[in-house]
């Protein structure tokens, strides 16, 4: 049986079956959902033994879907998507487990939404065809809209609609870009047929103007999803209003769809534009790192604090991607997984206490560690992993990103490094206020400690934090070949294009204008940097 299709469609089939379950059988519905998501996780682990450390898509499945337009149902996994898929399949059972007792309203629809969301997210990471990728990208919106809107907090409607409209606006422009790219391929391919296969489109050469426009169409879609600095406003709303499970999936996986999009599509499809606008994106991501951290610092609400910390952490991922070195990109991918695990754990923890005390305000807590020792321990571990304590996962990712970025863009790396310090400040601040100090509120002395299902949900996350922190090579060695390939794709096209423009420029304009020559110098510098990176990047 095709492995990748199985993990995409198993949750969907389960969701359809669950739809006919009677509404009253809440436990049977939750149980089935949990078993299916666990089964999906176990099956997805089956990718690992079959995965060879080679670049390019593996375990490829390719069937014509809409052959008239060259659209295929194509799934494949490579070093970039591998860990993100496993992260998704890991977090879904965690979410269902965490919500076991807290979801009392419409449990059937809740479980169905998460299963469909899981399938769509896995499909997005596995798709090798641009249209299929887009379909899965959009498909994640509907269940998340329902999850926020039905099971969310007081201001849930505003948050849900804002989330949907922001994402949809970006992605529709990307759809236009996708169609345009397909036609650009037709005009260049020797056979003259449409294709939306991602690897086919890597080779399409575009005029600088078109490439810039398409770059912005795609970047906008993914920058909203990440979210990058000025486009992040939907995120605090969505995170705060979403139920715990929704926040975990939103922060844990959905934001990574944005960074993954940059890595898989934006960089290799538009290498020139990516070079040209690298400073823009790097600047925005660095602003996001600092801004997110500063805003997190002053939040009175725990969930909002963690939400803004996501803006900061995702800034690191985007910075690492656009720094374009082997080290920084590997760091970014690892950091995507890390953030999913650590922030997922933090949201889970915040959800646990919210469920017991129905407040998330830091001011309402204090000295909780005495009443809930187990909970406090788990929370502190998650927090330290998010801060980037050596020995836990966050450190490895941030270190790789910063050291990789330092080689190409030292200034950005230095500024971003202060974000790490700020993270330590606001998260330690959170811990101090909530768990230590005198008990200010009598109610906090008799809070029930963490329950079995919540511990069960946390254990795998803690294991992963330690594993990645202590021995990241398990993960890095699988992604190295693909990252290497990606960098060479980006740079190779770049060089071909520079050659073409240099020749063209030579024949057309005898005397190149000062501006043009300036650009060429800049490009030359970038190329020089690139070769340095390749030497420095190989580990």
């Amino acid at each position, binding site marked *: 049986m095709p492995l990748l299709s199985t993990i995409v469609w198993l949750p969907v089939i389960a969701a359809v079956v669950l739809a006919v379950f009677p509404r009253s059988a809440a436990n049977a519905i939750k149980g089935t959902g949990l078993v299916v998501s666990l089964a999906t996780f176990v099956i997805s682990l089956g990718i690992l033994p079959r995965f060879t450390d080679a670049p390019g898509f593996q375990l490829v499945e390719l069937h014509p879907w809409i052959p008239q337009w060259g659209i295929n149902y194509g799934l494949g996994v490579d070093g970039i998507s591998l860990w993100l898929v496993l992260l998704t399949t890991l977090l879904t059972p965690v979410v269902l487990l965490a919500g076991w007792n807290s979801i009392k309203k419409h449990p059937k*629809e809740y479980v169905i939404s998460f299963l469909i969301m899981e399938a769509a997210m896995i499909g997005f990471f596995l798709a090798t065809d641009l249209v299929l990728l887009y379909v899965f990208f959009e*498909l994640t919106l*509907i269940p998340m809209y329902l999850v926020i809107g*039905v099971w969310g907090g007081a201001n849930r409607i505003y948050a*849900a609609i804002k989330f949907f409209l922001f994402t*949809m606006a970006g992605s529709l422009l990307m759809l*236009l870009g996708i169609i345009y790219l397909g036609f650009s391929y037709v005009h260049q391919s020797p056979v003259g047929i449409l294709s939306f296969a991602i690897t086919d489109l890597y080779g399409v050469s575009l005029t600088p103007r078109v490439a810039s426009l398409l770059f912005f169409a795609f970047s906008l879609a993914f920058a909203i999803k990440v979210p990058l600095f000025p486009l992040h406003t939907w995120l605090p709303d969505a995170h705060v209003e979403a139920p715990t499970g929704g926040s975990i999936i939103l922060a844990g996986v959905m934001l990574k769809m944005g960074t993954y999009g940059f890595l898989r599509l934006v960089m290799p499809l538009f290498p020139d534009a990516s070079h040209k606008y690298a400073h823009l994106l790097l600047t925005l991501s660095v602003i996001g790192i600092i801004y997110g951290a500063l805003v997190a610092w002053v939040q009175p609400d725990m969930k909002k604090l963690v939400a803004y910390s996501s803006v900061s952490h995702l800034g690191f991922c985007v910075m690492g991607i656009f720094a374009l070195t082997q080290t920084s990109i590997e760091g970014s991918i690892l950091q995507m997984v890390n953030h999913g695990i650590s922030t997922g754990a933090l949201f889970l923890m915040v959800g646990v206490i919210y469920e017991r005390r129905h407040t998330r305000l830091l001011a309402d807590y204090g000295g909780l560690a005495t009443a809930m020792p187990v909970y406090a321990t788990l929370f502190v571990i998650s927090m330290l992993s998010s801060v980037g304590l050596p020995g836990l996962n966050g450190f490895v990712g941030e270190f790789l990103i910063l050291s990789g970025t330092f080689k190409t863009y030292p200034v950005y790396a230095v500024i971003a490094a202060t974000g790490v310090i700020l993270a330590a400040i606001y998260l330690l601040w959170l811990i101090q206020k909530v768990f230590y100090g005198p008990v200010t509120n009598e109610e906090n002395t008799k809070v029930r400690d963490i329950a079995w299902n919540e511990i069960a949900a946390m254990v795998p996350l803690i294991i992963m934090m330690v594993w990645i922190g202590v021995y990241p090579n398990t993960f890095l060695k699988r992604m190295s070949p693909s990252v290497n390939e990606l960098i060479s794709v980006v740079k190779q096209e770049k060089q071909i294009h520079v050659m073409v423009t240099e020749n063209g420029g030579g024949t057309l304009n005898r005397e190149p204008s000062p501006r043009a020559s300036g650009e060429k110098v800049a490009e030359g510098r970038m190329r020089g940097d690139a070769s340095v990176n390749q030497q420095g990047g190989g580990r």
Partner: protein
Amino acid sequence: MNVLAPLTAGWASAILPEIILCIGGMIVLLWDAFAPRMKALLAPLSLIILIVAANSERFIGGGTFFGGTYEISPITRVFDITFFLAAMLTTLFARDFLDREGIESGEFYALLLWGTVGMMMMAKGLDLLIIILGLEMLSMCIFVLVGFARKLPVSNEASVKYFLMGAFATGFVLYGTALFYGATQSTNITVMARYFATSDGSNPLLTIAFVLLMAGFGFKLALAPFHPWAPDVYQGAPTPVSGWLSVAPKAATLIALVRLFTAMTPVLPKVSWMQLVAVLSVLSMLIGNAVAIVQRDLKRMLAYSGIAHVGYMTIAMLTMRDENIAAVAVYTIVYALMNIGAFGVVSLLSKNQNDPQTLDDIAGLGFRRPYYGLALAVCMFSLAGLPPTGGFVSKFYIFKSAIDSGHTTMALLGILASIISVYYYLRVVYFLYMKEPAEGFVVETVGDVFSVGALAISMIGILLIGIYPTPLFNMAGAAARAFLQ
């Protein structure tokens, strides 16, 4: 002498489905007259007639008939699918609605069948006069159907509005046709095509004729700025009729325009007629979507959303390539499924036709009536163009054909308009699933097996086309290629 001879003649078999529908309509009328107590059988009877007529298409060869004024080709068959689909779904939804309103009678189904004949004539007419005949036959049926709830003032008002505006629109079409005749010496589209092949389009008569025709057809399409009748009429008409009206006549008008535009293709680069059509399309998308946002009445909202959807379809009409024609054909079929489906749910929920059906009426429906809620949600997501629905692939087809024929700006405007539209479609879903119904509010919706079945057809159709559109694309693409040859 053999009395059956005419039936075996070529011309008779060419219009076999039309003949069946006409006679079938009379049978339905007579049935109601002679067996007034068996009204329950009227809907099944007209369904059977529709199915028989649809199947009779298989026995007809292609070609032109009646002296080159009537053409049967793959593309007319594709559009016939839309007409039959629309009529069947409407019949299924209507039975329960008419029964509740106490206005069930044979005339309703008969008029629906005859209206379908009118649309088939518009689709197959190769002569502007045949198209106008079809248009009139259709309009007569619509006038009566819109006012079918004759005891209700809103219904009568809608009927009068539609009649007055419709009469003007037909006048414009006739006047335009007359001017075309003056310029090209024929009303036959084939002859006109020969004229356009050699003309430079500089004759001012042609421009005036084109503008008049577009005004008349624009009215039937509810294309802005000829749209203001649509919200009032849809709101006042019996809800199943609104659904039918929002889909089928538009499809018939579009195929007539496809014929006309194709004939004009050689002359189009020399004149600015298509810029005019582009302006109408952009206006429709913007006005339709912007005004739909502030509507709280479901039928009015769907009316404005329909105006926007015609705008999308018109994007593909700007250039007559096979892909564009196929895109329009696919869009009309999907549009029939999703829009009649949406109106169907609204008609199921209506307590009393005189009352407006606002968004508040569907609050919490998603959990109280999961099946109806899901159906309406699927229709909304499809109208918004989200995967994995037919609305997504058909919109994709429209934008793809637009970009391929060089109308990237129009595609961009269409995309921007769709972004606006997502808001009000989502609001319906918000009311379905996230809003508690008002205190003491009860919706007594039962729905008969027909309406439940019609909803199932819509939903399965929408999802099936969204997930596996290849057969439909193959059929539409082949038909469009054959049409252009």
